[in-house]
């Protein structure tokens, strides 16, 4: 106690700051960093959840490198990212841009767009799964068949399945992105637009020279946020393909689903942990890259 009394006020403040910070630090250390660290350790081990853990060195990573399913899954994961992010970005911007100009039933429309974001992904995935079924139950194919058009194999196809699974995921995230875009649009000072109007500039120039450049921070945020989301896509895929998870022929399997299956149906925890480490590195890389772009913009 006496040691504390001898401290200066500034030092006392530091002690207290550390004391308060200790709680979240401990909490994070315990529930975030400790398991993360354990995952790194397990990735160098062989463990089936039941027996002893044995050290296997880099063999899990070697297996991963030589696993054709992993590379297929790797490509799928980036396909979700590369298709999903730009598509959702463009659609949500177009909606936000026009919604921002609409006064009639503005609140109601905004609510309609936001609703899917609040809906449970599981329920949504199952409804879309039903939409995609072949005749006689699927909504889309029944419609096609009644118009005399041949059926489309949405989910039972190696080429159509990934976009079919991605569509509801994009739709579900749209509401959130629209709201963020609208906030970004509102934050642009009206004086720029007034000045442009006085100068008699066309809408295209206004869009490309004023709106989009000033929206850059918003766009970067949405890109970072949605790309992490697409890299970690799981619930839509899993629920739309539960009978053959990530199928057919691994056409829709993302990395997270592969990790889940390796860990909890093959009980190969070491291999699953190695996949997790790879996913972690990918996410880290993508996030750093995007933060670097964001930083370059601000300076």
């Amino acid at each position, binding site marked *: 106690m006496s040691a504390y009394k001898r401290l200066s006020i500034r030092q006392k403040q530091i002690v207290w700051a550390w004391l308060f910070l200790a709680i979240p630090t401990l909490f994070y250390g315990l529930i975030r960093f400790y398991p993360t660290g354990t995952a790194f350790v397990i990735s160098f081990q062989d463990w089936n959840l*039941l027996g*002893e853990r044995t050290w296997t060195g880099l063999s899990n990573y070697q297996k991963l490198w030589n696993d054709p399913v992993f590379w297929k899954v790797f490509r799928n994961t980036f396909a979700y990212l590369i298709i999903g992010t730009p598509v959702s970005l463009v659609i949500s911007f177009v909606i936000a841009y026009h919604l921002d100009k609409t006064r009639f039933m503005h609140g109601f429309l905004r609510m309609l767009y936001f609703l899917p974001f609040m809906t449970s992904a599981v329920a949504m995935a199952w409804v879309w799964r039903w939409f995609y*079924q072949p*005749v006689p139950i699927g909504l889309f194919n029944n419609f096609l*068949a009644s118009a005399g058009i041949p*059926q489309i194999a949405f989910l039972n196809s190696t080429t159509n399945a990934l976009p079919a699974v991605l569509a509801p995921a994009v739709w579900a995230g749209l509401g959130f992105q629209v709201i963020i875009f609208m906030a970004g649009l509102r934050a642009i000072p009206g004086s720029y637009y007034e000045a442009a109007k006085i100068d008699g500039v066309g809408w295209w120039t206004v869009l490309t020279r004023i709106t989009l450049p000033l929206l850059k921070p918003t766009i970067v945020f949405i890109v970072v946020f949605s790309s992490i989301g697409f890299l970690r896509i799981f619930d839509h895929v899993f629920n739309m393909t539960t*009978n053959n998870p990530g199928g057919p*022929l691994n056409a829709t399997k993302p990395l997270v689903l592969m990790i889940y299956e390796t860990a909890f*149906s*093959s009980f190969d925890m070491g291999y699953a942990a190695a996949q997790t480490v790879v996913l972690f590195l990918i996410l880290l890389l993508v996030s750093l890259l995007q933060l670097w772009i964001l930083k370059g913009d601000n300076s």
Partner: protein
Amino acid sequence: MSRYMKRMALSGLTALATLFGSSAMAVEIEYWQYFFDARVDAMEQLIEKFEEANPDITVKMTHFPYADYRTKVAAAIPAGEGPDVVQLFYGWLNDYIEAGLIQPLPQDAFDPAVIDAEFFPMVQAMKRDGSYYALPTAVRSLALFYNTRLFDEAGIENPPATLDELVETAKKLAKVDGAGNLTQVGITTGMTAQDHHWWREVLVRQFGGDPYSDDYKTVNYTGDAGLDALNFYVGLEKDHKVTQSGFMDEPQAAFKGGRAGMHIDGSFRIGSLNKVRGLKWGVAELPAGPDGTKSNYSSYWVNGITTKAEGEKYDAAVKFLQYLTSDEAMQLWLDVVGELPAKPSVGLIEENASDPTFGPFIKGLEYANTTKFANESAQRQAMVDMVARIDIEGQDPAESLAAAAAEEQKVLDEYYKK
């Protein structure tokens, strides 16, 4: 501070001692299983009867969602916690033995020779080096479900008894719309459901093969029998056009929806089919092969004694397991859960064997095989992909079969090399 801690620890010890002291007379053992309504209900009734007969033993049942089950068991037993008697899937036996979670059943109470003679033959998969490690109360097998209303409508009198009849019957049941899209299938197909068992243990054998050699460690279906079986299976969709994989999403959904004439499934489906209003269905034995060969696939959950059980708890656990594998327990399990008795002495009594619903399943047990899976989901995936490559990518069946065999062999090698 430290004195306070000491006092705390001391009082804790005293409390523990009192606890153990009071339970010294009556033994309490713990039983674990995964949560499934009917199973928990049946087990509660069994425990009640067992405790009545053995007043000095109490059994505490704990159940978990299926998803957490394995993790919890694995964490608890090595720590000296958890169950004395534990339920596990037959396919996990190797893992449980290797991890030291269960111990062999004592030879005096569970004489291997007696068990060999009394139980259905596939239960012998639970024997290692001459001792049994676990025993089932109930088993499951496959049979052919058929929609009696659709049969009447198509003027079909009896369910098919052979594979040829199966194709002919299915042709009469399938319906297409004007554009040629199937709106009702003759028989459901889908390797993701029970068909991979039907193909592996039934069709391959019926076409003259033996799906595995070397005690299920080597894939053996690459020959003509495997190819014939595969051609028959994919032919249902490709040549005869009586089915479509993924029709109405899931085979059982199509059957429940009354859009499928026939459906191969396990005895565990009976309960949920009973709940479907307006669906009239019957059960028949699986159709016999071209040369009359009958086969079936059986799977089961078993109970074993954990390595945690010692001393008087061990004795109580043995008694409890003896009760769980008694004729009385098996009959109760059949009545409550609808799973089939593991002994012919219960299963094949007149009342059960001639039961219109359970009968075909029980008859199937006499010639059933049990696949010793190394990793059931990965081995199933090989079958699913085998059919998908033919179905979606138009691959030649022989090539696809070879690829599936290689894939499955890799899974087996990886498992057994340790």
